């Protein structure tokens, strides 16, 4: 009975996503363009480098990493901060709070429809194309399983961070500024724009202890390693699990404490 409530939200999300086909096409074009720019940029960068391997990454390593990071971003980014911010500003959040479901869960499940659509139509095709074009840059073995577990944890961490930042909107009533800050920090420190392997030393170690690298860098490093050592798998997944639980508790507690503060203008 309980699962049915959630799946109804998923279904609504899928139907909603199917309504916006034109926007979908433009999104795909935008993505292709981005990938083209990334390809040429890194090609030029490696051509000027003088050596094939820089910081342990070859050109194709870097490219596969960045392409898949973009695909992961498109699949995982749900713009939850925007949604929460808009709901808070318009006052719609009051209605959502009255629903017989926890707001945090309601919001998450209403995004799952888009999730499924994004996974099927952006992540999966990109993955298959990259796997086919590069002939074995993505090893197909037990690492796929680790990758899948890692992505599930990453989705959860990403959502918790979004939810935490969205809660800040209750106080500031500024959506754009808060959202852009979050996006910039996550994209840079998670390795989605520049692989973390390139980061200079003190920064690299610091970044490893932050939750952001668990979103993109952790699943990708598990995926691209054909025979990862047990130690690597355990530390990566363990770190992710730690952040998953920690961010869950923090974001929940913050939300609970903030709800008492809420002021809603109309609705």
């Amino acid at each position, binding site marked *: 009975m309980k699962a049915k409530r959630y799946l109804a939200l998923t279904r609504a999300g899928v139907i909603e996503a199917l309504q916006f086909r034109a*926007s979908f096409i433009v999104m795909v074009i935008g993505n292709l363009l981005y990938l083209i720019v990334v390809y040429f940029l890194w090609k030029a960068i490696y051509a000027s480098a003088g050596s094939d391997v820089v910081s342990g990454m070859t050109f194709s390593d870097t490219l596969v990493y960045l392409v898949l990071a973009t695909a992961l971003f498109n699949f995982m980014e749900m713009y939850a901060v925007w949604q929460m911010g808009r709901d808070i500003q318009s006052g719609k959040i009051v209605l959502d709070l009255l629903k017989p479901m926890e707001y945090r869960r309601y919001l998450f499940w209403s995004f799952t429809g888009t999730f499924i659509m994004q996974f099927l139509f952006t992540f999966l095709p990109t993955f298959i194309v990259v796997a086919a074009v590069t002939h074995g840059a993505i090893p197909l073995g037990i690492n796929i399983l680790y990758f899948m577990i890692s992505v599930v944890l990453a989705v959860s961490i990403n959502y918790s961070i979004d939810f935490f930042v969205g809660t800040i909107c209750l106080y500031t009533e500024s959506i754009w500024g808060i959202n852009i800050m979050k996006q910039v920090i996550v994209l840079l420190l998670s390795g989605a724009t520049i692989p973390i392997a390139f980061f200079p030393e003190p920064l690299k170690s610091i970044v490893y202890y932050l939750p952001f690298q668990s979103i993109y860098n952790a699943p990708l490093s598990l995926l691209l390693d054909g025979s990862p050592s047990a130690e690597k798998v355990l530390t990566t997944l363990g770190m992710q699990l730690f952040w998953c639980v920690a961010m869950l508790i923090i974001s929940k507690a913050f939300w609970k404490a903030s709800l008492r503060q809420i002021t809603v203008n109309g609705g």
Partner: protein
Amino acid sequence: MKRKGLRFYLHIYRKILAQDIKSKMSYRADFIISTIGMIFTNISGFVGFWILFRNFPSINGWSYHEMLFLYGFSLVSITPVQCLFDNNWSLRQQVYSGDFIKYCFRPINLFFYYQSEVFDIKGLGQLAFGIGTIAYSWSRIGLAFTPLMLLKLIVFLITASLIMIALQNAAAATCFWIQNSFYVLDLAFRFKDYAKYPVTIFSTVFRFIFTFIVPIAFIAYYPSLVILRPDEIPLLSWLSPFIGIAFFFVSYKIWMRGATRYSGTGS
């Protein structure tokens, strides 16, 4: 009807601007957070560059400081579109809801009146950051500083800014013909991120596209050459002011054509 002069428009612009700033100032927290968010975006772009050049000494014959100059140039030249033409983002809703009709009944230029209504102050943070980056890289490269160079810089910056304005105008104007133009606008806006790379990194086909079809190479690359490589300035660099003006004029015509076609929603 008598044609209104430039002095008249400047006078009106000051008045409308004052009203807009007053209303913005009533949301002071939002203004401060948005400005910080903007600065964050720029700092992260800067950090990205820095990390990249820690690993690679140059890109396609462009040194770190030359790339920084290009980056600063692109930041400054996309500031006008951010500050002065931000109302393009709400054109879609105004047209959809029918509110746009109010602009059609004023005895002044429709395009001017519409764009003058919003001034986005947070762009000024970006302007300051861009100017700082240009000044820093200018002194590190060891370029001579003469009044003539400064004049060139200013003229080329202003005309380069017209390119991004033109792209955004044309993209925003699509809402007069198609329903959901947000994605077109978003796509056009994303092009600005690609302007900070030298166009020579691309293959011939894309170099052609980025020069003549979506002319983002004129946002920073071609005009920067006038300052950075004074010994070998290509013809396109000298042409860039005229190309900026031409593209702006075309986009203005598209925008106005769409606007005069608008017949309201009947409400």
